[in-house]
């Protein structure tokens, strides 16, 4: 697995290529890219800034990649999460999953994204375009994201962060 937390942009196509180059056992690659939208709840954004807890983010993402590898037969996983200031239209996060067949690749990518949204220690702060709201505002967690992550909890599974 490859996990990188970085300030710099990434190249999704090149990262997917690195997983498959020279291999003939991979039949499916899913590449998901999360992109900074230009609005949050209808208000126009200038930029968003992501704060993170570096050591924990690395460990927490690795734990979830390992869990994905236990649940599906994967041939490769790459997760890249950016931090710092990101403007609308720029990439934020990349998940690439490679498998023999599409089902595993799709499921693992969705699983990893659902967990990244709710469990990886990153926090978004937005800057609105409206001069009257120029201060930075922390984005609230969405209950709908928690519900999406909860779909993957197996009976008796762990979910320590839930209150």
């Amino acid at each position, binding site marked *: 697995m490859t996990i990188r937390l970085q300030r710099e942009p990434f190249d999704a196509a090149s990262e997917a290529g690195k997983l498959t180059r020279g291999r003939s056992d991979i039949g499916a690659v899913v590449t998901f890219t999360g992109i900074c939208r230009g609005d949050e709840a209808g208000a126009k954004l200038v930029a968003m800034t992501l704060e*993170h807890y570096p050591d924990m983010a690395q460990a927490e993402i690795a734990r979830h990649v390992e869990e994905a590898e236990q649940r599906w037969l994967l041939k490769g996983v790459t997760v890249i999460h950016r931090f710092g200031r990101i403007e609308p239209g720029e990439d934020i996060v990349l998940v690439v999953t490679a498998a023999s067949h599409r089902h595993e690749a799709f499921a693992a990518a969705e699983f990893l994204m659902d967990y990244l949204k*709710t469990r990886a220690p990153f926090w978004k702060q937005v800057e609105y375009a409206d001069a009257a709201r120029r201060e930075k505002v922390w984005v609230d967690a969405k209950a709908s994201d928690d519900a999406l992550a909860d779909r993957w909890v197996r009976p008796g599974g762990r979910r320590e*962060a839930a209150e």
Partner: protein
Amino acid sequence: MKVRYFAWVRERVGKPEEEIEPPATIATVADLMRWLAMRGEEYAHAFENPKVIRAAIDRAHVKADTAISGAREIAFFPPMTGG
């Protein structure tokens, strides 16, 4: 032990991290939040609603009733909004 604060918890407390020595009666993460809240106005503001604050011990998520004995690093932060 070292405590670290992130996002609006960090902003309210006014610092990203510090060393603390809570008394032995402080047994759990919830106890520690109550103890921190008594350290001053900024802490009271940061921990005014402990139910919304998440915690990690030594870089793994924990619940509020988790024991803190032996912890080297405890972090407090709002619900995560990555991805």
